[in-house]
């Protein structure tokens, strides 16, 4: 009995070992390294091992950091809100309005069509569209809606968020659609029989039951937007920055320790946000 138990324990440990090892080597170790390097000092071309708070002091001592931080969170929250509304609507339509399974699958696949090209290309294709002499401006002008080209269409916060929404809405659609498909249809009938209006059913039945999908989608969108740098760089014409761009600028200029310090702060923030989200909904229980 006792020997069985130990061997069962042993097998359990062994089964868990490969994944644990992979995570240790490729996740935990690099993160530890980043944390260590963030305390180092650097010159133009080399790093000096040290234990110095210089990088953090510079980071927290500069008003630009706070502005950039605010920008990052702003992009994340606006993109999250827009993708949530869009994603939920699309998923709701697919799950409850499209009756035949074939059409559901066809329409769902249609949603993924843009993903057949690289996200950089999808993003860059907005630039000629939104430009001063682009399609959007020339169309609006030919309709007589505007007299002069709208400058804020491109290289602005508007274009950044537009690109984020375009790139990441599907990450909201998929998990929400998935949880919606698993809602027992008789619950909706019961709500209807009990006299609930469509809106009441939505608020009291559908939304609570899709909470886990919403939460998974939110985690996707928020982490992707918080960690992005290339979308912000291209769509703002290098004129605005988020934390990712601070890091990429530092790396480009060989300031690895400073980049590491920014990365640590960004990581901590994202982890805190995810932790807060997980407190609202216990994903493991819901799944």
């Amino acid at each position, binding site marked *: 009995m006792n020997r069985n138990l130990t061997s069962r324990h042993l097998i359990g440990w062994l089964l868990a070992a490969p994944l644990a090892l992979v995570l240790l080597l490729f996740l935990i170790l690099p993160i530890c390294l980043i944390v260590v390097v963030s305390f180092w000092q650097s010159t133009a*071309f080399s790093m000096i091992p040290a234990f110095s708070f210089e990088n953090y002091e510079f980071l927290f001592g500069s008003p630009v950091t706070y*502005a950039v931080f605010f920008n990052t969170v702003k992009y994340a929250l606006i993109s999250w809100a827009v993708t949530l509304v869009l994603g939920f609507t699309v998923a709701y339509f697919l799950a409850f309005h499209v009756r035949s399974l074939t059409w559901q699958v066809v329409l769902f696949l249609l949603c993924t069509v843009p993903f057949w090209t690289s996200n950089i290309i999808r993003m860059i294709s907005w630039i*000629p569209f939104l430009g001063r002499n682009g399609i959007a401006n020339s169309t609006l002008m030919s309709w007589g809606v505007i007299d002069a080209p709208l400058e804020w269409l491109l*290289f602005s916060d508007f274009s950044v968020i537009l690109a984020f929404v375009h790139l990441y809405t599907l990450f909201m659609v998929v998990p929400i659609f998935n949880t919606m498909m698993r809602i027992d249809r008789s619950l909706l009938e019961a709500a209807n029989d009990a006299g609930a209006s469509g809106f009441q059913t939505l608020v009291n039945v559908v939304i609570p039951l899709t909470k886990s999908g919403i939460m998974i989608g939110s985690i996707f969108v928020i982490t992707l937007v918080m960690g992005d740098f290339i979308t912000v760089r291209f769509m703002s014409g*290098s*004129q605005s920055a988020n934390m990712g761009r601070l890091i990429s600028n530092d790396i480009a200029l060989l*300031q690895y320790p400073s980049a590491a310090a920014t990365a640590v702060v960004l990581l901590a923030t994202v982890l805190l946000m995810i932790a807060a989200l997980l407190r609202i909904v216990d994903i493991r229980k819901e799944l």
Partner: protein
Amino acid sequence: MSKMRYSRRTLLKSGAAAVAASALPAPMVWAQEIKDITLRQFGTGVSNLNDVANKVKEDLGFTLEMTALDSDAVTQRAATQPDSFDIADIEYWICKKVWPTGNLQAMDTARIANYDKIVGIFRDGKLTPDSEIAQGTAPHSVGFVEGPGGTEFVNNESGWMTLIPTIYNADTLGIRPDLIGRPIESWAELLNPEFRGKASILDISSIGIMDMAMVCEAMGAITYGDKGNMTREEIDATFAIFTEAKKAGQFRAFWKSFDESVNLMASGEVVIQSMWSPAITAVKARGIPCVYQPLKEGYRSWGGGIGLSTSLSGMELDAAYDYINWYLSGWVGGYLMRQGYYSAVPETSKNFMSENEWGYWFEGKPATDVITSPTGDALAQAGDIRDGGSFEDRMGSVACWNAVMDENQYMVRKWNEFIAA
């Protein structure tokens, strides 16, 4: 065997007797083995051209692999991944940054056939005996070290070169004359409120800061001790002016790659911006008017060269010297000069250009016939004159060289803040 003769001759001429002795007794083996040699070159897009690699294969027999990166990435790779390349095609200011890492080896000028014909800028710093040396990281100041293993730059022609100069030019602002409609004469125009929302500057700190300095100095706002080596106060003052302009919406965008600058200009998003010569050419090739405007304050100049990785030795090193000698022998020079750059040894390039091309690109004479780019697009019609004129006119009015300063790290952080502001 005709391909062989070239390398044998240069080897002999260079006086590397030992190497030649081992190579000459068995030329067949050498010819066979050289085909198996692959040299990995990386550098900025300007001179990493597939046409050059193809021509190397044809003329010298070995394979040259090209990787084109932006200036920041080039610096990063040269400094941190010495084993990832054999030949670094970098700029002189990058050399100042990278040389102390010991990833590059000095080159023996005795093995460079055309060394004596290299333009003075790269040797004693002077275009003509009486020209003044401009501010910034002038190429000759980081061009030589005291010996094969030297780590300190020396300011004389020591016989050991850090980079063999290959390509250089004088940069200024690019403008869209059709959208501006009046003459532009000064760097200060970049911050003229008239061009609010239609100006751009490049987002590469070490070059961008120089353009900024040219503008601030032209505005009369700041007087610099040395634009190529600013003090913290000068850096702060420069960024203060540009941050204010940025917040006021002066800039439409910043660009980092060549293609971005072309698109900004060609689409009319921007009418005045920092630009590189071939970008102007690319805009013109689309049939859109674009001028590389000479300005009264002078040019911001840059130069690039080929450096050899420390890990190169033996036959690969010989092949690299062959490559350098071939590079300076004229074909590449002609190719680059037809794009508006200058070659380090102009006189050899002349043999590879038509009289019309030489007159237009180098001597600043009116074109006698259509001028085409190496890819065949018409760039100028008969009677047109190159923006800025002749080689002496352009390279003679250089106000500063691209540079890396003592306060580089501070400047870089300030640059980061400027982009984020």
